[in-house]
């Protein structure tokens, strides 16, 4: 026990002695949490809108006015010709383009039906879909008033059948992205810090040559590893705590569920990550190799965690792969407990898988650490 304490003391001293690292460990993650959480939004707004009005009548102007009045569309550009409009589209200055043809009003009056050209830049397919919904909604609303307001025809039609839908958004009525993203980004930061630090740790001693000195001491494998990992475990828990305070105070994220449950889960989760870090450390010769591998897995873990894009949309084989992704479980648990107030029984599947994972990774790490060459 005493030996472990000494190793822990040594590790902490080394961490705090490296002045260049301190801000990277303690300030950078929290700064990123504060700044980047604002960036992660799928909301589509400030759409760059433009139009070509070849009709110049009160109907066409009224329609354009409706688009300008919508809060989703940014102040619009009036293009005198199609060439100019498509050039602007190529340059990326316009994403939604409305084309009102010649004799638009006249044909509408005569045929009681008319088409409208809409061109949407669809490189971001999801955003294009949403933009299309906005456009359709505006035109539909315009249609409703068209008869009465513009053509002064009285409305005496048979009432069509109408199914009214009432959307209810539970747990997040205003569809605030920050409540969704802050817990997730916090998870990433805790993971990245603990994985990178532990992944580089032992290999650094190897590279500098001090590992041999430790190997000739009577310190046992398990003591050495526990002593090495404990400081990072503490750092991870510390970042979680400060991150939760930031989430609550700055972002107003509700913390509905039980805090002890979150800490219980995190304490086991960090063990998984540290195990992975150590395992990488044992199998590499230089810090560069260790970091490449750590980076490889982090990018995969992050992008396949369901944090930014939903897991259900992935193909079947990819969904199976995500079962091996610890970040996925952490993101799920944080969101469930923080936002929905899920209890112990609700997160039991994730918790038990994480415990199993922790045993396997740390077992492998201890097994693969060799004191002799």
């Amino acid at each position, binding site marked *: 026990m005493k030996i472990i304490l000494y190793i822990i003391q040594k590790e902490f001293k080394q961490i705090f002695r490296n002045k260049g690292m301190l801000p990277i460990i303690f300030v950078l993650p929290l700064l990123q949490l504060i700044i980047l959480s604002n960036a992660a939004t799928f909301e589509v707004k400030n759409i760059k809108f433009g139009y070509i009005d070849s009709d110049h009548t009160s109907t066409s102007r009224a329609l354009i006015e409706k688009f300008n009045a919508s809060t989703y569309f940014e102040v619009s550009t009036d293009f005198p010709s199609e060439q100019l409009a498509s050039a602007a589209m190529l340059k990326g200055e316009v994403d939604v383009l409305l084309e009102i043809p010649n004799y638009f009003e006249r044909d509408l009056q005569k045929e009681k039906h008319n088409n409208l050209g809409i061109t949407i830049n669809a490189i971001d397919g999801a955003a*294009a879909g949403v933009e299309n919904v906005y456009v359709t909604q505006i035109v539909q609303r315009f249609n409703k008033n068209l008869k009465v307001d513009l053509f002064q025809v009285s409305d005496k039609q048979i009432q069509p*059948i109408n199914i009214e839908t009432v959307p209810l958004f539970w747990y997040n009525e205003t569809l*605030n992205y920050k409540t969704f993203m802050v817990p997730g980004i916090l998870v990433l930061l805790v993971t990245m810090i603990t994985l990178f630090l532990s992944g580089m740790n032992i290999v650094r001693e190897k590279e500098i040559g001090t590992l041999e000195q430790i190997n000739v001491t009577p310190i046992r494998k398990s003591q050495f590893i526990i002593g090495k990992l404990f400081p990072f475990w503490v750092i991870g828990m510390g970042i979680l705590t400060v991150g939760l305070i930031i989430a609550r105070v700055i972002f107003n994220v509700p913390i509905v569920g039980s805090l002890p449950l979150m800490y219980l889960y995190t304490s086991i989760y960090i063990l998984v990550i540290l195990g992975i870090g150590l395992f990488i450390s044992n199998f590499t010769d230089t810090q560069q190799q260790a970091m490449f591998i750590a980076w490889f897995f982090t990018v995969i873990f992050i992008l396949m965690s369901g944090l930014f894009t939903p897991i259900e949309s992935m193909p079947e084989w990819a969904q199976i792969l995500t079962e091996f992704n610890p970040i996925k479980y952490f993101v799920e648990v944080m969101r469930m407990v923080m936002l929905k107030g899920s209890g112990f029984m609700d997160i039991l599947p994730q918790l038990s898988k994480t415990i199993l994972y922790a045993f396997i990774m740390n077992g492998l790490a201890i097994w693969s650490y060799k004191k002799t060459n």
Partner: protein
Amino acid sequence: MKRFIGFIKKEFYHIFRDRRSLFILFGMPIAQILLFGFAITNEINNVDIAILDHSKDATTEEIINKISASKYFSVNQFIEKESDIETIFKKGKVKAVLNFEKDFSKNLIKDHNATLQIITDATDPNTANTISNFVNAILTQYQKELNKDITIEYQIVPRTRMVYNPELKSVYMFVPGVMTIILMLVSAMMTSISITREKELGTMEILLVSPLKPLQVIIGKVFPYIFLSIINALVIIVLSIFIFKMPVQGSLVLLGLESILFIISALALGILISTISATQQTAMMISLMGLMLPVILLSGFIFPISSMPIPLQVISNIIPAKWFIIIIKGIMLKGVGLQYVWKETLILFGMTVFFIGLSVKKYKIRLE
């Protein structure tokens, strides 16, 4: 000049001697682009939903059939009472519940109006919103069928044309992004330790007493990596064209040149990190912790920049990846030439010069 060539040779030896790193360097980007190209999508498919049907009549049954027939939803279970909603949401699998009011058909016939609640688990706002939009679209279609005998006068029908990506494939959005992230991080990470490593291993002294000038040392360090990264970029571009069927509407040569420019700017950024950090560990942490999330989040790879708050839109301008993503999307999908992306190119070029200049300035020619 001969001395300089000798130095570059030394760097190449260093890189080729470490077989394991080389393997990682080329293997990983390929594995990643294949994995992500197939797996990452924000299209919504097969979302599990539950039904709470208070009327259980012909109309509700028809609507439920229409919903479960669509590829977006799979009806996971039927529940009987309101209080069950909370329980299934907490388990986390079901994302939405459709709640049909009592006497749905009867109301529809009598008042021409009936109500359906779409209750979504909005902890994920994007999925919640999309689910609600999709259900609405299915219902609008159904209403049209019901109302087909009534002609509605004075209708303007929008004819929407989706340009550059008519099938709304999310691959078109994500492949350029994944490509950028891989090139950026691999390049920056590789070079970020190149100078600190010499410091840490003690070989820096030898470099300092040699007659090489700082600029020569820095360019010599970057040079071999340019070569490696170009191979990487080529592999990625070939994969995205042949496996993900990304079109290259514009000039392939321009795409290549722009990629080289971007690689050099990322490498230069790595060198800069390396000159300002004392240990390899610090350099690695800066290039990983400092670059990974900002590049993923602020480059427009996943989240649209135009929807971000203004201060973040301003910050996003200093991310080289943002400009590169605009350029490759322009060349590959829109088919534009240099006359449309010269501004972005110039910005990337300016950043590169800035990074190299600053590195030369920060490169210490004396030992502490």
